[in-house]
């Protein structure tokens, strides 16, 4: 009897798998290692030190960029998550209506339209507003980030809503709960892991963005990633490695938390 096809038993499988993992993780491991380099080089090891972390910590430009990044990511993920919750409710908790599929596609537009196109479009759109109003503050960046973060917040919220037993909300209505009360007392308490997960994912995505930020930002509005990009064009020191490692740590923390939260009470 022929054994069923099993990809793990094919010759060369382990070799290819190992090669893939090396390609994926070796550069990151090297980046992390060299963030602790005592010397000025990013490729020559001269001993262990935390000097670049200290220098990044004291660098005023990095401080400003970090604060800006966090402010933008916080604002954007709050806006994106609120919009995503409403969109998810409209696409799961209503009787099928014409255009529901279209709305679903529109909400997910940022996943399909090339980022560079969105970036150029926002650049042109915002410059028109800038000319008209004269406002040049951070809100352009916050709104731009909110826009492309919506689908990332939408997905976990929608998945959670779809997984919820509809009869619970019906039971709520049956027991004299008006739609608003049912949402507050029945839907929301069960939805929060999805909402939190969506907000965290949106936060990480916003924190990481380069392309759209680079196009939309005004002078002096560098975020952490665009600051790093600017540095790399000049001299590269392990300071970049140190910032990257810190960003990596934050992302891993948030994504791990996302993973556990989205699994709770399922």
């Amino acid at each position: 009897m022929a054994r069923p096809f099993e990809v793990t038993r094919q010759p060369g499988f382990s070799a290819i798998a190992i090669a893939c993992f090396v390609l994926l993780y070796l550069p990151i491991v090297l980046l992390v290692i060299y963030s602790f380099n005592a010397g000025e080089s990013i490729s020559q090891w001269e001993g262990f030190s935390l000097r670049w972390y200290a220098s990044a910590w004291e660098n005023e430009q990095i401080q400003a960029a970090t604060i800006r990044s966090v402010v933008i990511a916080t604002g954007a993920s709050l806006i994106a998550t609120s919009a995503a919750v409403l969109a998810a409710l409209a696409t799961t908790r209503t009787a099928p209506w014409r255009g529901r599929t279209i709305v679903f596609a529109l909400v997910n537009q940022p996943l399909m339209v090339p980022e560079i196109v969105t970036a150029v479009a926002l650049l042109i759109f915002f410059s028109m507003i800038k000319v008209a109003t004269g406002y040049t503050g951070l809100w352009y960046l916050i709104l731009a980030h909110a826009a492309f973060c919506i689908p990332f917040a939408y997905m976990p919220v929608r998945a959670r809503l779809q997984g919820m037993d509809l009869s619970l909300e019906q039971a709520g209505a049956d027991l004299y709960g008006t739609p608003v009360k049912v949402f507050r007392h029945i839907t929301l308490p069960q939805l929060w892991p999805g909402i939190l997960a969506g907000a965290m994912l949106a936060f990480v995505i916003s924190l990481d963005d380069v392309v759209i930020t680079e196009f939309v930002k005004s002078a002096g509005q560098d975020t952490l990633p665009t600051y790093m990009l600017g540095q790399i064009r000049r001299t590269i020191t392990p300071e970049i490695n140190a910032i990257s490692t810190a960003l990596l740590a934050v992302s891993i923390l948030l994504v791990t938390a996302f993973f556990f939260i989205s699994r709770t009470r399922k």
Partner: protein
Amino acid sequence: MIDIREVTKVFGAGSDAFRALDRVSVTIRQNEFFTLLGPSGCGKTTLLRMIAGFEGPTEGTILLDGDDLAGKPPYERPVNTVFQSYALFPHMSVAENVGFGLRMLGRPKDEIAATVREMLALVRMSELAERQTAQISGGQQQRVALARALAPRPKVLLLDEPLSALDFKLRKEMQLELKRLQNETGITFVFVTHDQEEALTMSDRIAVMNAGRIRQIGVPREIYDHPADRFVADFIGDTNFLSAELTARTGDTATLRLPSGRTVEARAQGDGTPGKVTLAVRPEHAELAPPEEGALTGTLTEVVYSGTDTHYHVALDQEAGLFVLRRQNRPDAGPAHQRGDRVGIRLGAVAGQVLRD
């Protein structure tokens, strides 16, 4: 009192349109244990959902104590539901579940606490008040669902197959408990089941449904003894159908001639014109007899022992098909019969129910 008048429900539209309920009319009285009984897909849940307000009728009206319910959302109807899946709120304790309806109605805290205590005592769940709903058994969840639906003192309680998930013993227990609760609270119960035995033991009245229509409404005895048509006779209990010819009728008693040439008497309502009819005979209403004494004759093809009863399957001489009889097993039971024996079937003084096709 619930007055359901000519209610029709059509799902979908155009060529997909499906008539789940077809001109259903029924009046459910105050304080009645009323059961909707019928096979899967006959529209029982749909009718309940329309009384609760989750679905609107395509045509017809539903009145509760004279008020038209049309356009009233579920949260404005003094009607509560025990869902088939129980639908307990997983993020609340047992007590919070039971108090939810009163909380939504904005009742004062101490009143809610008192009612919750009373309801939990009623369903014998007082010790588990602070448990999370995931930490109690299926039977306990069911009782919590019941207490939750009873707590706001609705005028009508709707129960959608609430016992179907329970094992046999617990189910028997809960049947009695439901009956007791209904007596103690005086609330009108509308109960859905597809278990005919459950319907017969619990109900004040039963509506037998099939394919979106009500086929018969009556007290259990009426439904069992006087089924209105072949569907009802077949669905409720076991029935033997015999072809016969109606020759005369006086009052409720008809004289029939069987294909064997014998004449028997049976109950008949409605149309009494002579002609071909069907005679429905319950298995426990006939007895085995020597071949020469039977109204029918045949050969025993199967003897099935089932504890309290023995079932005899007889292949009839006069027409195709099996006739099934049931005899209680008693120490003094008559002679044992065996497969292959020639037997007669003796019908009662009133042989059965006459059905028109």
